[in-house]
C-alpha cells in the first residue's frame, strides 16, 4: 500500500485533472514543442532538398529561404505589405464575426427563417469568387475592400454555423430559467445564449481567422498590387522560389499569430469552459 502525495511539480493525476488547473509543465510545452517541431520540419525539408533531390526551383533549400527572408524583412516596404494583409484579414474577420454571430443567433432561434435562407447562404459560399472580381472592382475599386469582402465571405460561414449550433445547444433547463424570469430576447441572448454560445463562437472564430487569411490572400492574387498575396504571385511569376517561400513563411507566422491571438482571447473570455481548462 503506497501513500501518495501530489505535490505541485509532479504531473497531475488524470482523474479530474481538468478541474485542478494545468501544470506549469503543460503551460510551457508549446515553447518546447514549437521549436522541436520547427527543427523536425527544417530537417525534413533539408532532407527533401539535399537527399531526395527536389529541384531548388520547386523547393529551395531552407538556407536560401532564410536568406530571402532576411532580404525581405530588411526591405522597407515589406511592413507595408504585411500591414495591408493584416488589415484586410482583421477587417474581414471582424465583419464576419459580427455578421456571423448576428445571423447565426437569429437563424438559430428562428427555424423557419433558417430553412428559408440556408440554401442561399450555401450557394453564396460555393460560388467561385473569381467571376465576381470585375463586379467587386467596379463597386469597390481596387483598394482593400474587395479583399476584405473575400476574407469576410470565407470567415462568415464557419462562425455562423457554429453560432447556430451553439444557440441550439442551450441547455433546456437554462432556457426554462430565463423564460421563467420573463427575460426579453436581448437579456436572454446576453445572459444565456451568448455565454453558452461563446465556446462555439470561438471554435468558429478559430476556423474563421485561418480562412480570413486565406480569403485575403486569394483576394490579393486576383487583383491589386499590395499585400502578401501579391508578393506570393509576383515571386511565383518571377520564378523566385526562395522569395516565394520566404513570403510563405511570413504568412504561416502571421496566420499562426492570429490564431494564437484568438485562442488567447478565448482563454480570457470563457475561463469557465472545459475546452479552455483542458488545454488551449
Amino acid at each position, binding site marked *: 500500500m503506497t501513500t501518495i502525495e501530489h505535490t505541485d511539480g509532479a504531473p497531475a493525476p488524470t482523474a479530474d485533472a481538468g478541474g485542478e488547473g494545468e501544470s506549469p509543465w503543460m503551460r510551457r510545452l508549446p515553447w518546447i514543442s514549437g521549436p522541436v517541431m520547427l527543427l523536425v520540419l527544417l530537417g525534413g525539408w533539408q532532407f527533401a532538398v539535399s537527399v531526395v533531390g527536389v529541384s531548388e526551383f520547386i523547393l529551395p533549400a531552407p538556407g536560401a529561404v532564410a536568406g530571402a527572408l532576411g532580404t525581405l524583412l530588411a526591405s522597407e516596404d515589406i511592413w507595408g505589405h504585411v500591414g495591408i494583409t493584416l488589415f484586410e484579414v482583421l477587417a474581414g474577420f471582424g465583419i464576419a464575426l459580427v455578421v456571423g454571430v448576428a445571423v447565426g443567433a437569429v437563424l438559430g432561434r428562428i427555424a423557419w427563417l433558417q430553412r428559408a435562407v440556408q440554401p442561399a447562404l450555401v450557394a453564396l459560399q460555393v460560388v467561385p469568387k473569381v467571376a465576381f472580381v470585375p463586379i467587386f*472592382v467596379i463597386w469597390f475599386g481596387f483598394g482593400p475592400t474587395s479583399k476584405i469582402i473575400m476574407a469576410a465571405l470565407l470567415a462568415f460561414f464557419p462562425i455562423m454555423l457554429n453560432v447556430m449550433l451553439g444557440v441550439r445547444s442551450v441547455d433546456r433547463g437554462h432556457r426554462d430559467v430565463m423564460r421563467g424570469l420573463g427575460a426579453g430576447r436581448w437579456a436572454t441572448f446576453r445572459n444565456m445564449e451568448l455565454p453558452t454560445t461563446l465556446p462555439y463562437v470561438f471554435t468558429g472564430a478559430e476556423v474563421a481567422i485561418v480562412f480570413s487569411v486565406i480569403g485575403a490572400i486569394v483576394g490579393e492574387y*486576383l487583383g491589386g498590387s499590395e499585400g502578401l498575396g501579391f508578393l506570393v*504571385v509576383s515571386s511565383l511569376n518571377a520564378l523566385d522560389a526562395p522569395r516565394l517561400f520566404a513570403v510563405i513563411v511570413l504568412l504561416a507566422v502571421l496566420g499562426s499569430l492570429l490564431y494564437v491571438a484568438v485562442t488567447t482571447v478565448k482563454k480570457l473570455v470563457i475561463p469557465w469552459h472545459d475546452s479552455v481548462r483542458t488545454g488551449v
Partner: protein
Amino acid sequence: GAGDTTDDGRQRMTFLNILPLESLSYSAELIADTKGFFAARGLDVTFETTQGSAPAIQTVLAGSAEITRIGDIETMIAAGKRGAPLVAVGEAIHRGTLRMVSARDDAITEAGQFRGKLVGTPSEGGTSSITLDLVAGSAGVPPAEVRRQVVGLAPGVFDLLTTGRIDAYIVSLDTSVQLQRTRPEAVVYDPNSAISAGAQVYATSRATAQDPAEQDKLRRYMAAIDDAVRFIAADQATGFQATMASISSKYQVPALGDPETAREALRGYVASYTGGETSVGISPQRWERTYQEIAGIGQLPPGLDPAQWLVAGIAPTGTVTR
C-alpha cells in the same frame, strides 16, 4: 512519363499548356493531335494544364513533363536571372501575341502614351508586366511611370476600361480579336511594332534536352508542330475550313463558336507562325535582340550569353510561306 510507350508502340510524352488547351492559341497542338501528326511521328502526347507559366517551368524542370510553350521573356528570366536549367528548343509563334486594349475615347496607339497610365495586367510580375516595361522602355518611358494593377481575366474587365477604373489592359491575341468584334470602342495596340521580345518558345529542361532519347522525342514533337503550322498556314486560303473542322472533331473550343472571330484570330496566328526566319526554329539574332531589350530595362543582368539557353538542332529548319 518518360520512356513509356503505348500498346501500338508510340512514345508517350507530356506537353504543358499554361492556358486551357481549348483555345486558338494552341491551334498548332490541336491540329497536330487531330490530324495525326503526333501519331505519324510515333508520339502519344498528353496535354496537361497548369495555371500560368511559372508552375509550367517548375514542372518541366522537375521532369514531370517534357515540354511546354511559354514566352521568351520568362524563359530568359528563368535561365538568366534565376539560373534555372531551362532551354528553348523551338519557336512556333514568332510574333508576340499580347495586345494592349484601350478605349476609343482615350486610345493608346503608341508606346509613349503609356506614360502615367494605369494598365491592367492579368497577373503580377509575369510576362505581361515585363512586356509593358519593354514597350514603355522603347519610347523612353521608365517602367515606374506606368502604373499597373492586377485585374485578372474575366469577360467584364473591359467594363473597367469604360468605367474609367483603368486606362488599358493586356490581353492575348484571341481576346483582342474578340473584343474588337464585340466592343466597337476597343482600340488594340500591338507591341510588336515597338519590341522584338514576345515570341513563344518551346522550352524544356537542360537535362531533357541533353538526353539522347528525350532529344529524339522532342525532335519528333517539333516536327509534328512544324507539320501542323504548315497545315494551318496553307488552310488560310480556304478560310481555315479544314483547320476548324479538324479541331472541332475532338475539341470543344469556345472560340470556334463564332467562326468569323475565329478566322480573324487564326489569321493573326498564321501571321505569327510565318513571322520568323524558319518555321519552328529560333532565330539567334532575334534571341540576342530580345535579351538586349530585357537587359536594357534591368530585368536581366547584362553581359550574359543568351545562346546558352538555346538548343539548336531539335526544331526542323525550313520556312513557311503563306
